[in-house]
């Protein structure tokens, strides 16, 4: 006679096993401020998306205010600070995405003192959203279907949104800037340093177009 383990026993067994394997995992790890802020930002951004959908009037005011800010910032900006100190690099010894701080970071701002400006947007894209706090300033551009996000971080707060397990980093030099490029399906992630800040650009454009956009990011100084 055939011996069969029934499904309900298996499910009950897996519940017991799952509970047992978690029994020795404590909850005493105290998250750092950096981590909490990063996650708060994630949650804040979620609220922002909902806000965008439901409160269109408020959204319009926000977008207009952001557009005016960018215009003023662009008019006031002097030539972009091009010197790129490679204060971070992708560890090629491992495939893990690690950001290593260089000695020059001691002088890096620990808050966003000067928000970046974009000299021009890619054709068809308009500003759709801004998110900011003391350590991050982010613009989202949209063309109705796709989005591009340009984010400015203090070095201490930076953590890439790229999933290191699904994409491999490549170093690309364009002009006088070194970029870390990751491509996952259609999405391209660029990370680079400018004006003492770390920038991340995420979008679904060809790498060349993404690099062209990144070159238009400037920090008045």
């Amino acid at each position: 006679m055939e011996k069969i383990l029934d499904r309900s026993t298996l499910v009950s067994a897996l519940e017991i096993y799952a509970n047992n394997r978690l029994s020795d995992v404590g909850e005493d790890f105290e998250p750092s401020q950096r981590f909490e802020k990063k996650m708060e930002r994630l949650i804040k951004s979620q609220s922002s998306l909902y806000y965008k959908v439901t409160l269109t009037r408020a959204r319009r005011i926000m977008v207009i205010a952001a557009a005016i800010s960018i215009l003023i910032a662009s008019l006031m900006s002097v030539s972009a600070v091009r010197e790129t100190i490679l204060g971070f690099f992708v560890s090629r010894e491992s495939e893990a995405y690690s950001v290593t701080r260089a000695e020059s970071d001691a002088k890096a701002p620990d808050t966003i003192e000067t928000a970046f400006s974009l000299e021009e947007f890619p054709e068809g894209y308009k500003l759709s959203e801004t998110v900011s706090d003391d350590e991050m300033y982010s613009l989202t551009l949209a063309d109705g279907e796709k989005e591009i996000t340009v984010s400015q971080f203090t070095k201490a707060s930076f953590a890439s949104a790229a999933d290191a397990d699904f994409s491999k980093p490549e170093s690309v030099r364009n002009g006088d800037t070194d970029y870390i490029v990751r491509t996952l399906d259609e999405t391209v992630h660029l990370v680079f340093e400018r004006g003492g800040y770390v920038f991340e650009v995420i979008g679904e454009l060809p790498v060349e177009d993404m690099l062209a956009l990144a070159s238009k990011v400037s920090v008045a100084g």
Partner: protein
Amino acid sequence: MLAFYLSLAQDENDRDKFEQIYIKYRRLMLSAAYKILGDAELSEDAVHNAFMRILNNLGKLGEVDSPRTRSYVVIVAENVAKTMYMQRRRTVSLEDEQLCGSVDDVADEYEDKSSAEYVAAVIARMPEKYGAVLILKYLNGLVDREIASSLGLSDAAVRKRLQRAREMLKTLLDVDDVEGF
């Protein structure tokens, strides 16, 4: 900056759920990752990545305050941490195909070999990676593609891992088949 990932959260309920999962499980996930990595900053990076993966499968998770969700988030955090550990140490695998202890000892402990307790004890002797995919498949009800995105594996690797897990379980339990496998 996370608009791409956040767009995966389909509606307000998903977003609320994500926040609740974060509040409820972040310390547990961080502790689980720390047990593997032994480094606080790396553990936080691992859990951050784990939350990205959780966003992908938010719709498939049930109640936030449930053993199944608790188990799921820890498995995802552990998996990201193990991947980071392996990448840093350049080791091929933390786990191998070896059993974690003798199944004969388990058999001696349990009279009723058809009980859930006995089956659970046998699963605990299997490599953790097999137990993890069985949980995601049969407790969390994820399809292979969702397991793959949760664990950072290819669909093919998930199918292979599930196949090995099922075969090992059937052998250890000395059964011909498992209903629903």
